[in-house]
Protein backbone atom coordinates (compact mmCIF):
# COMPACT_ATOMS: atom_id res chain seq x y z
CA UNK A 1 0.00 0.00 0.00
CA UNK A 2 1.33 3.37 -0.91
CA UNK A 3 1.25 6.50 1.21
CA UNK A 4 -1.09 9.39 0.58
CA UNK A 5 -0.04 12.97 0.02
CA UNK A 6 -2.00 15.02 2.56
CA UNK A 7 -2.06 18.44 4.16
CA UNK A 8 -0.86 18.54 7.77
CA UNK A 9 -4.39 19.30 8.92
CA UNK A 10 -5.68 16.17 7.16
CA UNK A 11 -2.81 13.94 8.29
CA UNK A 12 -3.16 14.79 11.98
CA UNK A 13 -6.92 14.63 11.92
CA UNK A 14 -6.95 11.24 10.15
CA UNK A 15 -4.05 9.51 11.88
CA UNK A 16 -3.79 10.88 15.43
CA UNK A 17 -6.59 9.93 17.83
CA UNK A 18 -7.14 11.01 21.43
CA UNK A 19 -5.37 8.61 23.79
CA UNK A 20 -2.86 7.43 21.16
CA UNK A 21 0.75 6.57 21.88
CA UNK A 22 2.55 9.14 19.70
CA UNK A 23 6.27 9.27 18.89
CA UNK A 24 7.28 12.50 17.13
CA UNK A 25 10.97 11.64 16.81
CA UNK A 26 14.14 13.27 15.50
CA UNK A 27 17.25 13.59 17.68
CA UNK A 28 17.91 17.37 17.71
CA UNK A 29 17.79 17.14 13.91
CA UNK A 30 14.48 16.97 11.97
CA UNK A 31 12.12 17.41 14.91
CA UNK A 32 8.59 17.59 13.47
CA UNK A 33 7.52 20.87 15.09
CA UNK A 34 4.89 21.67 12.47
CA UNK A 35 3.12 18.39 13.24
CA UNK A 36 3.32 19.09 16.98
CA UNK A 37 1.74 22.49 16.42
CA UNK A 38 -1.09 20.98 14.41
CA UNK A 39 -1.75 18.44 17.19
CA UNK A 40 -2.02 21.39 19.59
CA UNK A 41 -4.35 23.28 17.23
CA UNK A 42 -6.60 20.25 16.89
CA UNK A 43 -6.70 20.02 20.71
CA UNK A 44 -5.93 16.32 20.84
CA UNK A 45 -6.00 14.93 24.35
CA UNK A 46 -4.74 12.20 26.67
CA UNK A 47 -1.84 11.33 24.37
CA UNK A 48 1.04 9.21 25.60
CA UNK A 49 4.07 10.95 24.16
CA UNK A 50 7.37 9.12 23.54
CA UNK A 51 10.70 10.64 22.59
CA UNK A 52 14.31 9.97 23.53
CA UNK A 53 14.61 13.70 24.31
CA UNK A 54 11.26 15.48 24.76
CA UNK A 55 12.82 18.78 23.60
CA UNK A 56 10.85 21.99 23.04
CA UNK A 57 8.25 20.26 20.89
CA UNK A 58 6.93 18.21 23.81
CA UNK A 59 7.37 21.12 26.21
CA UNK A 60 4.92 23.02 24.00
CA UNK A 61 2.53 20.10 23.54
CA UNK A 62 2.50 19.23 27.25
CA UNK A 63 2.00 22.89 28.21
CA UNK A 64 -0.93 22.95 25.77
CA UNK A 65 -2.45 20.02 27.65
CA UNK A 66 -2.52 17.34 24.93
CA UNK A 67 -0.71 14.63 26.93
CA UNK A 68 -1.24 12.55 30.05
CA UNK A 69 2.01 10.59 30.03
CA UNK A 70 5.59 10.98 28.82
CA UNK A 71 7.97 8.12 27.99
CA UNK A 72 11.52 9.45 27.63
CA UNK A 73 15.27 9.15 28.11
CA UNK A 74 16.42 12.71 28.85
CA UNK A 75 14.29 15.79 29.58
CA UNK A 76 15.97 19.11 28.96
CA UNK A 77 16.73 21.97 26.61
CA UNK A 78 20.10 20.77 25.26
CA UNK A 79 22.97 23.02 26.30
CA UNK A 80 20.50 25.48 27.87
CA UNK A 81 18.67 24.01 30.87
CA UNK A 82 15.18 23.00 31.94
CA UNK A 83 11.96 22.50 30.02
CA UNK A 84 9.64 24.51 32.24
CA UNK A 85 6.37 23.42 30.61
CA UNK A 86 7.10 19.79 31.46
CA UNK A 87 8.39 20.70 34.92
CA UNK A 88 5.16 22.58 35.70
CA UNK A 89 3.16 19.53 34.61
CA UNK A 90 5.28 17.19 36.77
CA UNK A 91 5.82 19.40 39.81
CA UNK A 92 2.50 21.34 39.91
CA UNK A 93 0.17 19.29 37.70
CA UNK A 94 -0.35 22.33 35.42
CA UNK A 95 -2.23 22.44 33.13
CA UNK A 96 -2.87 18.79 33.99
CA UNK A 97 -1.00 15.95 35.67
CA UNK A 98 1.68 14.18 33.67
CA UNK A 99 3.03 10.77 34.55
CA UNK A 100 6.58 9.83 33.62
CA UNK A 101 8.11 6.56 32.47
CA UNK A 102 11.84 6.90 32.09
CA UNK A 103 14.63 4.92 30.50
CA UNK A 104 18.04 5.86 29.21
CA UNK A 105 18.57 6.56 25.52
CA UNK A 106 19.86 3.04 24.93
CA UNK A 107 16.88 1.58 26.82
CA UNK A 108 14.22 3.52 24.95
CA UNK A 109 15.76 2.96 21.54
CA UNK A 110 16.01 -0.74 22.40
CA UNK A 111 12.24 -0.72 23.02
CA UNK A 112 11.76 0.68 19.51
CA UNK A 113 14.21 -1.86 18.04
CA UNK A 114 12.15 -4.66 19.58
CA UNK A 115 8.95 -3.09 18.25
CA UNK A 116 10.43 -2.74 14.78
CA UNK A 117 11.82 -6.30 14.83
CA UNK A 118 8.65 -8.14 15.80
CA UNK A 119 10.17 -9.21 19.13
CA UNK A 120 8.52 -8.97 22.56
CA UNK A 121 11.56 -7.40 24.20
CA UNK A 122 15.15 -6.35 23.63
CA UNK A 123 18.07 -7.17 25.87
CA UNK A 124 20.98 -4.85 26.55
CA UNK A 125 23.90 -4.33 28.91
CA UNK A 126 22.69 -1.56 31.16
CA UNK A 127 21.19 -0.54 34.51
CA UNK A 128 23.11 -2.96 36.79
CA UNK A 129 23.59 -1.25 40.12
CA UNK A 130 21.37 1.73 39.24
CA UNK A 131 18.05 2.83 40.79
CA UNK A 132 16.25 2.95 37.43
CA UNK A 133 14.70 -0.56 37.60
CA UNK A 134 13.31 0.31 41.05
CA UNK A 135 11.25 3.19 39.63
CA UNK A 136 10.34 1.62 36.28
CA UNK A 137 8.87 -1.89 36.46
CA UNK A 138 9.38 -2.29 32.70
CA UNK A 139 13.15 -2.46 33.15
CA UNK A 140 13.76 -6.10 34.03
CA UNK A 141 16.46 -8.72 33.59
CA UNK A 142 16.77 -11.84 31.48
CA UNK A 143 19.26 -14.67 31.69
CA UNK A 144 21.28 -15.52 28.60
CA UNK A 145 20.48 -19.17 27.73
CA UNK A 146 24.04 -19.69 26.47
CA UNK A 147 26.29 -17.97 29.00
CA UNK A 148 23.97 -17.56 31.99
CA UNK A 149 24.75 -13.84 32.12
CA UNK A 150 22.08 -11.52 33.45
CA UNK A 151 21.11 -8.80 30.95
CA UNK A 152 18.68 -5.91 31.15
CA UNK A 153 15.46 -6.35 29.19
CA UNK A 154 12.93 -3.76 28.04
CA UNK A 155 9.57 -4.44 26.38
CA UNK A 156 8.80 -3.73 22.73
CA UNK A 157 7.29 -0.33 22.06
CA UNK A 158 4.89 -0.03 19.14
CA UNK A 159 3.57 3.55 19.02
CA UNK A 160 0.15 4.04 17.47
CA UNK A 161 1.61 6.84 15.37
CA UNK A 162 5.15 7.89 14.50
CA UNK A 163 5.76 11.32 13.03
CA UNK A 164 9.06 12.00 11.28
CA UNK A 165 10.50 14.95 9.50
CA UNK A 166 12.91 14.38 6.58
CA UNK A 167 14.61 16.27 3.80
CA UNK A 168 12.71 14.60 0.98
CA UNK A 169 10.34 11.83 -0.05
CA UNK A 170 8.47 10.85 -3.16
CA UNK A 171 4.68 10.90 -3.14
CA UNK A 172 4.66 7.20 -2.15
CA UNK A 173 6.50 7.98 1.08
CA UNK A 174 9.94 6.65 0.13
CA UNK A 175 11.94 8.87 2.45
CA UNK A 176 15.56 10.01 2.24
CA UNK A 177 17.51 11.54 5.10
CA UNK A 178 21.05 12.77 5.53
CA UNK A 179 22.80 14.19 8.55
CA UNK A 180 21.92 12.79 11.98
CA UNK A 181 19.54 9.85 11.67
CA UNK A 182 18.33 9.57 15.28
CA UNK A 183 15.94 6.65 15.74
CA UNK A 184 13.89 7.54 12.68
CA UNK A 185 14.19 4.14 11.03
CA UNK A 186 13.46 2.20 14.21
CA UNK A 187 10.41 4.27 15.15
CA UNK A 188 8.99 4.11 11.61
CA UNK A 189 9.21 0.32 11.50
CA UNK A 190 7.90 0.03 15.08
CA UNK A 191 4.82 2.25 14.71
CA UNK A 192 1.39 1.15 13.52
CA UNK A 193 0.93 4.33 11.46
CA UNK A 194 3.58 6.71 10.11
CA UNK A 195 3.34 10.32 8.99
CA UNK A 196 6.39 11.71 7.18
CA UNK A 197 6.81 15.48 6.84
CA UNK A 198 9.34 16.65 4.25
CA UNK A 199 11.06 19.77 3.06
CA UNK A 200 10.32 18.74 -0.51
CA UNK A 201 8.56 16.10 -2.57
CA UNK A 202 10.75 14.63 -5.29
CA UNK A 203 10.07 12.17 -8.08
CA UNK A 204 10.62 8.45 -7.62
CA UNK A 205 13.55 8.75 -10.04
CA UNK A 206 15.41 10.96 -7.56
CA UNK A 207 14.93 8.35 -4.84
CA UNK A 208 16.00 5.49 -7.11
CA UNK A 209 19.13 7.38 -8.19
CA UNK A 210 20.50 7.11 -4.63
CA UNK A 211 18.88 4.14 -2.87
CA UNK A 212 21.44 4.01 -0.03
CA UNK A 213 20.07 7.31 1.21
CA UNK A 214 16.55 5.94 1.68
CA UNK A 215 16.03 5.56 5.43
CA UNK A 216 12.33 4.71 5.49
CA UNK A 217 10.54 3.01 2.59
CA UNK A 218 7.03 4.01 1.57
CA UNK A 219 6.03 0.49 2.57
CA UNK A 220 5.68 1.62 6.18
CA UNK A 221 4.50 5.20 5.53
CA UNK A 222 0.81 6.15 5.60
CA UNK A 223 0.88 9.88 4.92
CA UNK A 224 3.33 12.32 3.36
CA UNK A 225 3.10 16.03 4.12
CA UNK A 226 5.22 18.65 2.34
CA UNK A 227 6.08 21.56 4.63
CA UNK A 228 9.25 23.58 4.09
CA UNK A 229 10.75 24.75 7.40
CA UNK A 230 8.47 22.25 9.14
CA UNK A 231 11.24 21.32 11.57
CA UNK A 232 12.03 24.90 12.70
CA UNK A 233 13.36 25.76 15.34
CA UNK A 234 15.08 22.38 14.95
CA UNK A 235 16.91 21.97 11.66
CA UNK A 236 17.15 20.09 8.37
CA UNK A 237 20.76 19.37 7.38
CA UNK A 238 21.68 21.31 4.27
CA UNK A 239 18.34 23.21 4.23
CA UNK A 240 18.47 25.35 7.38
CA UNK A 241 20.46 25.57 10.61
CA UNK A 242 19.20 24.90 14.09
CA UNK A 243 17.74 28.13 15.47
CA UNK A 244 19.93 28.19 18.56
CA UNK A 245 18.70 31.70 19.43
CA UNK A 246 15.19 30.28 19.69
CA UNK A 247 16.40 27.43 21.92
CA UNK A 248 18.32 29.87 24.14
CA UNK A 249 15.32 32.22 24.27
CA UNK A 250 12.98 29.36 25.21
CA UNK A 251 14.41 29.43 28.74
CA UNK A 252 12.71 32.83 29.12
CA UNK A 253 9.64 32.13 26.95
CA UNK A 254 8.74 28.99 28.88
CA UNK A 255 9.63 30.31 32.35
CA UNK A 256 6.05 31.08 33.35
CA UNK A 257 2.80 29.46 32.28
CA UNK A 258 1.61 32.87 31.06
CA UNK A 259 4.62 33.56 28.83
CA UNK A 260 4.50 30.07 27.35
CA UNK A 261 0.77 30.45 26.65
CA UNK A 262 1.41 33.80 25.01
CA UNK A 263 3.87 32.05 22.68
CA UNK A 264 1.32 29.35 21.82
CA UNK A 265 -1.36 31.99 21.22
CA UNK A 266 0.81 33.87 18.78
CA UNK A 267 2.78 31.15 16.99
CA UNK A 268 0.57 28.06 17.22
CA UNK A 269 -3.11 29.00 17.68
CA UNK A 270 -2.46 32.33 15.94
CA UNK A 271 -1.49 30.74 12.62
CA UNK A 272 -3.45 28.24 10.56
CA UNK A 273 -0.50 26.31 9.13
CA UNK A 274 3.27 26.06 8.90
CA UNK A 275 3.07 28.15 5.75
CA UNK A 276 1.57 31.02 7.76
CA UNK A 277 4.16 30.47 10.52
CA UNK A 278 6.98 30.82 7.99
CA UNK A 279 5.34 33.91 6.40
CA UNK A 280 5.06 35.48 9.82
CA UNK A 281 8.87 35.46 9.99
CA UNK A 282 8.92 37.62 6.82
CA UNK A 283 11.90 35.88 5.24
CA UNK A 284 14.01 35.97 8.41
CA UNK A 285 14.35 32.17 8.65
CA UNK A 286 15.76 32.01 5.14
CA UNK A 287 18.17 34.90 5.75
CA UNK A 288 19.37 33.83 9.16
CA UNK A 289 19.45 30.03 8.97
CA UNK A 290 20.29 29.00 5.42
CA UNK A 291 23.78 27.42 5.35
CA UNK A 292 26.36 27.79 2.60
CA UNK A 293 26.24 24.80 0.24
CA UNK A 294 28.65 21.95 0.87
CA UNK A 295 27.86 19.33 -1.76
CA UNK A 296 28.78 15.70 -1.48
CA UNK A 297 30.20 14.44 -4.78
CA UNK A 298 27.97 11.82 -6.44
CA UNK A 299 28.87 8.13 -6.20
CA UNK A 300 28.75 5.72 -9.13
CA UNK A 301 26.19 2.93 -8.67
CA UNK A 302 27.06 1.53 -12.11
CA UNK A 303 24.62 0.56 -14.80
CA UNK A 304 24.05 -3.22 -15.06
CA UNK A 305 22.04 -4.25 -18.07
Amino acid sequence: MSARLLSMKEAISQYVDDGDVVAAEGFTHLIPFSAGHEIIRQRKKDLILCRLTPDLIYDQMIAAGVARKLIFGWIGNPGVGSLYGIRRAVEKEQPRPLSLEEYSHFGLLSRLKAGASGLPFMHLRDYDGTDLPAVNGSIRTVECPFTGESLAAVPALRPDVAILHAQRADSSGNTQVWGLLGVQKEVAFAAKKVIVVVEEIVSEDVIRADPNRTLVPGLVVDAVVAEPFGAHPSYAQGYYDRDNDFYLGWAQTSRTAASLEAYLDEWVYGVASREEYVEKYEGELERRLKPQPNLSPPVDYGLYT
Partner: protein
Amino acid sequence: MRPASLSELMAVAAAREIRDQDVVFVGVGLPNLAVNLARRTHAPDAQLVYESGVYGARPARQPLSIGDPSLATGAIQVMPMAETFTYFLQGGRIDVGFLGAAQIDRFGNLNTTVIGDYEKPTTRLPGAGGASEISWLARRTVILLPQKRNKFPERLDFRTSVGHHTGGGSREALGSKTAGPSRVITNLGVYGFDASSKEMELHALHPGVTLDEVRAEVGWELRVREPLETTEAPEPETLRLLREELDPKGVILG
Protein backbone atom coordinates in the same frame (compact mmCIF):
# COMPACT_ATOMS: atom_id res chain seq x y z
CA MET B 1 49.40 36.41 29.66
CA ARG B 2 47.07 36.13 32.67
CA PRO B 3 47.32 32.80 34.51
CA ALA B 4 44.80 30.03 33.85
CA SER B 5 41.41 30.44 35.50
CA LEU B 6 39.92 27.53 37.48
CA SER B 7 37.58 26.63 34.61
CA GLU B 8 40.51 26.72 32.16
CA LEU B 9 42.46 24.41 34.47
CA MET B 10 39.49 22.07 34.48
CA ALA B 11 39.47 21.98 30.67
CA VAL B 12 43.24 21.45 30.53
CA ALA B 13 43.13 18.66 33.14
CA ALA B 14 40.32 16.98 31.20
CA ALA B 15 42.27 17.23 27.93
CA ARG B 16 45.24 15.49 29.62
CA GLU B 17 43.03 12.45 30.23
CA ILE B 18 42.78 11.85 26.48
CA ARG B 19 45.46 9.72 24.87
CA ASP B 20 46.29 9.89 21.20
CA GLN B 21 44.04 7.58 19.15
CA ASP B 22 41.50 7.30 21.97
CA VAL B 23 37.94 6.88 20.79
CA VAL B 24 36.11 9.35 22.99
CA PHE B 25 32.40 9.43 23.76
CA VAL B 26 31.85 13.09 24.30
CA GLY B 27 29.16 15.53 25.37
CA VAL B 28 28.81 19.23 24.65
CA GLY B 29 30.35 22.03 26.65
CA LEU B 30 33.49 21.37 28.63
CA PRO B 31 34.11 17.78 27.43
CA ASN B 32 33.83 18.90 23.81
CA LEU B 33 36.27 21.71 24.45
CA ALA B 34 38.68 19.36 26.25
CA VAL B 35 38.70 16.83 23.41
CA ASN B 36 39.25 19.54 20.83
CA LEU B 37 42.10 20.91 22.93
CA ALA B 38 43.63 17.44 23.15
CA ARG B 39 43.31 17.02 19.37
CA ARG B 40 45.08 20.33 18.82
CA THR B 41 47.92 19.45 21.21
CA HIS B 42 49.00 15.94 22.26
CA ALA B 43 46.26 13.72 20.75
CA PRO B 44 45.75 14.68 17.09
CA ASP B 45 44.29 11.28 16.26
CA ALA B 46 41.68 11.10 19.02
CA GLN B 47 38.27 10.37 17.51
CA LEU B 48 35.07 12.02 18.71
CA VAL B 49 31.95 9.89 19.02
CA TYR B 50 28.62 11.56 19.75
CA GLU B 51 25.63 9.56 20.92
CA SER B 52 23.58 11.37 18.30
CA GLY B 53 25.17 8.90 15.86
CA VAL B 54 28.50 10.36 14.74
CA TYR B 55 31.97 8.82 14.61
CA GLY B 56 35.02 10.93 13.83
CA ALA B 57 33.26 14.29 14.13
CA ARG B 58 35.25 17.40 13.33
CA PRO B 59 32.89 20.25 14.21
CA ALA B 60 33.91 23.58 12.67
CA ARG B 61 32.10 25.46 15.46
CA GLN B 62 31.39 24.95 19.16
CA PRO B 63 28.21 22.84 19.12
CA LEU B 64 25.42 23.99 21.48
CA SER B 65 23.90 20.52 21.51
CA ILE B 66 25.10 16.98 20.85
CA GLY B 67 22.90 17.04 17.76
CA ASP B 68 24.42 20.09 16.08
CA PRO B 69 24.61 20.01 12.24
CA SER B 70 28.35 20.78 12.41
CA LEU B 71 28.87 17.29 13.87
CA ALA B 72 27.63 15.59 10.69
CA THR B 73 29.40 17.84 8.18
CA GLY B 74 32.92 16.50 7.68
CA ALA B 75 32.53 13.49 10.01
CA ILE B 76 33.89 10.07 9.13
CA GLN B 77 30.57 8.31 9.75
CA VAL B 78 26.98 9.19 10.55
CA MET B 79 24.77 6.30 11.63
CA PRO B 80 21.49 5.49 13.36
CA MET B 81 21.81 6.04 17.11
CA ALA B 82 21.01 2.37 17.65
CA GLU B 83 24.32 1.52 15.98
CA THR B 84 26.30 3.97 18.10
CA PHE B 85 24.94 2.47 21.30
CA THR B 86 24.98 -1.14 20.14
CA TYR B 87 28.20 -1.42 18.13
CA PHE B 88 30.38 1.37 19.46
CA LEU B 89 29.42 1.50 23.13
CA GLN B 90 28.08 -1.96 23.94
CA GLY B 91 30.47 -3.52 21.42
CA GLY B 92 33.42 -2.19 23.43
CA ARG B 93 34.84 0.37 20.99
CA ILE B 94 34.79 3.37 23.31
CA ASP B 95 38.03 4.04 25.19
CA VAL B 96 36.85 6.91 27.32
CA GLY B 97 33.47 8.45 28.10
CA PHE B 98 32.94 11.89 29.60
CA LEU B 99 30.17 12.42 32.12
CA GLY B 100 28.77 15.23 34.21
CA ALA B 101 26.32 14.98 37.11
CA ALA B 102 24.24 16.85 39.65
CA GLN B 103 25.63 14.59 42.40
CA ILE B 104 28.56 12.21 42.79
CA ASP B 105 29.37 9.92 45.72
CA ARG B 106 32.72 8.67 46.99
CA PHE B 107 32.67 5.70 44.59
CA GLY B 108 31.93 7.76 41.48
CA ASN B 109 28.27 6.77 41.22
CA LEU B 110 26.24 9.58 39.65
CA ASN B 111 22.83 11.16 39.99
CA THR B 112 21.24 13.03 37.09
CA THR B 113 17.62 12.10 37.85
CA VAL B 114 16.11 13.86 40.88
CA ILE B 115 17.02 15.87 43.96
CA GLY B 116 14.79 14.75 46.82
CA ASP B 117 12.25 11.95 46.70
CA TYR B 118 11.71 10.32 43.28
CA GLU B 119 7.91 10.63 43.41
CA LYS B 120 7.91 14.16 44.85
CA PRO B 121 11.23 15.64 43.80
CA THR B 122 12.52 19.01 44.97
CA THR B 123 14.16 19.28 41.56
CA ARG B 124 13.42 17.13 38.55
CA LEU B 125 16.72 16.70 36.68
CA PRO B 126 17.02 15.60 33.01
CA GLY B 127 17.39 11.87 33.69
CA ALA B 128 19.79 9.27 32.35
CA GLY B 129 20.10 10.17 28.68
CA GLY B 130 23.14 8.17 27.60
CA ALA B 131 24.84 8.38 31.01
CA SER B 132 23.91 5.03 32.57
CA GLU B 133 25.24 3.10 29.59
CA ILE B 134 28.33 5.26 29.09
CA SER B 135 29.23 4.77 32.75
CA TRP B 136 28.70 1.02 32.43
CA LEU B 137 30.18 0.34 28.98
CA ALA B 138 32.99 2.81 28.16
CA ARG B 139 36.39 1.32 29.02
CA ARG B 140 36.99 4.17 31.45
CA THR B 141 35.14 7.34 32.32
CA VAL B 142 36.16 10.85 33.28
CA ILE B 143 33.68 12.85 35.33
CA LEU B 144 33.58 16.64 35.20
CA LEU B 145 31.54 18.69 37.63
CA PRO B 146 31.77 21.84 39.74
CA GLN B 147 32.89 21.21 43.30
CA LYS B 148 30.02 22.01 45.69
CA ARG B 149 29.18 20.29 48.97
CA ASN B 150 25.61 19.48 47.84
CA LYS B 151 27.02 17.87 44.71
CA PHE B 152 29.36 15.65 46.75
CA PRO B 153 26.91 14.12 49.26
CA GLU B 154 27.44 11.17 51.59
CA ARG B 155 24.49 9.47 49.85
CA LEU B 156 23.05 10.13 46.39
CA ASP B 157 19.35 10.97 46.17
CA PHE B 158 19.16 8.65 43.15
CA ARG B 159 21.74 6.41 41.50
CA THR B 160 21.36 7.01 37.75
CA SER B 161 24.76 5.70 36.66
CA VAL B 162 26.93 3.19 38.44
CA GLY B 163 30.59 3.95 38.97
CA HIS B 164 32.52 1.82 41.45
CA HIS B 165 29.18 0.90 43.12
CA THR B 166 29.97 0.20 46.80
CA GLY B 167 33.71 0.04 46.24
CA GLY B 168 36.24 -2.79 46.21
CA GLY B 169 35.32 -5.46 43.66
CA SER B 170 31.59 -4.60 43.70
CA ARG B 171 31.44 -3.18 40.18
CA GLU B 172 33.02 -6.30 38.75
CA ALA B 173 30.72 -8.47 40.86
CA LEU B 174 27.75 -6.78 39.17
CA GLY B 175 29.06 -8.10 35.86
CA SER B 176 30.97 -5.10 34.57
CA LYS B 177 33.62 -5.73 31.94
CA THR B 178 34.99 -2.18 32.06
CA ALA B 179 37.13 -0.18 34.46
CA GLY B 180 34.62 2.51 35.45
CA PRO B 181 35.54 6.02 36.59
CA SER B 182 39.25 6.80 36.41
CA ARG B 183 39.19 10.55 37.10
CA VAL B 184 37.00 13.21 38.60
CA ILE B 185 37.92 16.76 37.66
CA THR B 186 36.41 19.79 39.33
CA ASN B 187 37.16 23.50 39.43
CA LEU B 188 39.23 22.87 42.57
CA GLY B 189 41.22 19.74 41.83
CA VAL B 190 41.77 16.33 40.28
CA TYR B 191 40.80 13.00 41.83
CA GLY B 192 41.56 9.38 41.12
CA PHE B 193 40.28 6.18 42.73
CA ASP B 194 42.22 4.00 45.15
CA ALA B 195 43.25 0.76 43.42
CA SER B 196 41.76 -1.62 45.99
CA SER B 197 39.00 0.24 47.87
CA LYS B 198 37.95 2.15 44.71
CA GLU B 199 37.23 5.16 46.86
CA MET B 200 37.75 8.60 45.37
CA GLU B 201 40.96 10.27 46.53
CA LEU B 202 42.29 13.73 45.89
CA HIS B 203 45.43 13.65 43.74
CA ALA B 204 46.00 17.32 42.95
CA LEU B 205 44.83 20.80 43.86
CA HIS B 206 44.57 23.46 41.20
CA PRO B 207 47.13 26.26 41.78
CA GLY B 208 45.98 28.61 44.56
CA VAL B 209 43.39 26.20 45.97
CA THR B 210 43.81 24.90 49.55
CA LEU B 211 42.95 21.48 50.95
CA ASP B 212 40.57 23.10 53.45
CA GLU B 213 38.66 24.72 50.62
CA VAL B 214 38.21 21.32 48.99
CA ARG B 215 37.22 19.56 52.23
CA ALA B 216 34.55 22.22 52.82
CA GLU B 217 32.94 21.17 49.53
CA VAL B 218 32.90 17.41 50.10
CA GLY B 219 30.16 15.72 52.13
CA TRP B 220 32.29 12.84 53.44
CA GLU B 221 35.69 12.34 55.08
CA LEU B 222 37.84 12.89 52.00
CA ARG B 223 40.86 10.67 51.31
CA VAL B 224 43.95 12.46 50.08
CA ARG B 225 46.77 10.73 48.21
CA GLU B 226 50.27 11.54 49.46
CA PRO B 227 52.13 13.44 48.23
CA LEU B 228 49.33 15.80 47.23
CA GLU B 229 50.25 17.43 43.93
CA THR B 230 49.45 20.73 42.28
CA THR B 231 47.79 20.67 38.86
CA GLU B 232 50.46 21.58 36.34
CA ALA B 233 49.84 25.01 34.83
CA PRO B 234 49.18 24.90 31.08
CA GLU B 235 51.70 26.07 28.48
CA PRO B 236 51.05 29.61 27.14
CA GLU B 237 50.27 28.10 23.73
CA THR B 238 47.58 25.89 25.28
CA LEU B 239 45.96 28.90 26.92
CA ARG B 240 46.16 30.85 23.68
CA LEU B 241 44.40 28.00 21.85
CA LEU B 242 41.63 27.91 24.43
CA ARG B 243 41.12 31.66 24.54
CA GLU B 244 41.61 32.64 20.93
CA GLU B 245 40.56 29.64 18.89
CA LEU B 246 38.52 27.05 20.78
CA ASP B 247 36.30 29.26 22.96
CA PRO B 248 36.91 32.80 21.72
CA LYS B 249 33.59 34.12 23.04
CA GLY B 250 34.06 32.50 26.44
CA VAL B 251 30.81 30.56 26.05
CA ILE B 252 32.12 27.60 28.02
CA LEU B 253 34.96 28.98 30.10
CA GLY B 254 33.24 32.26 30.98
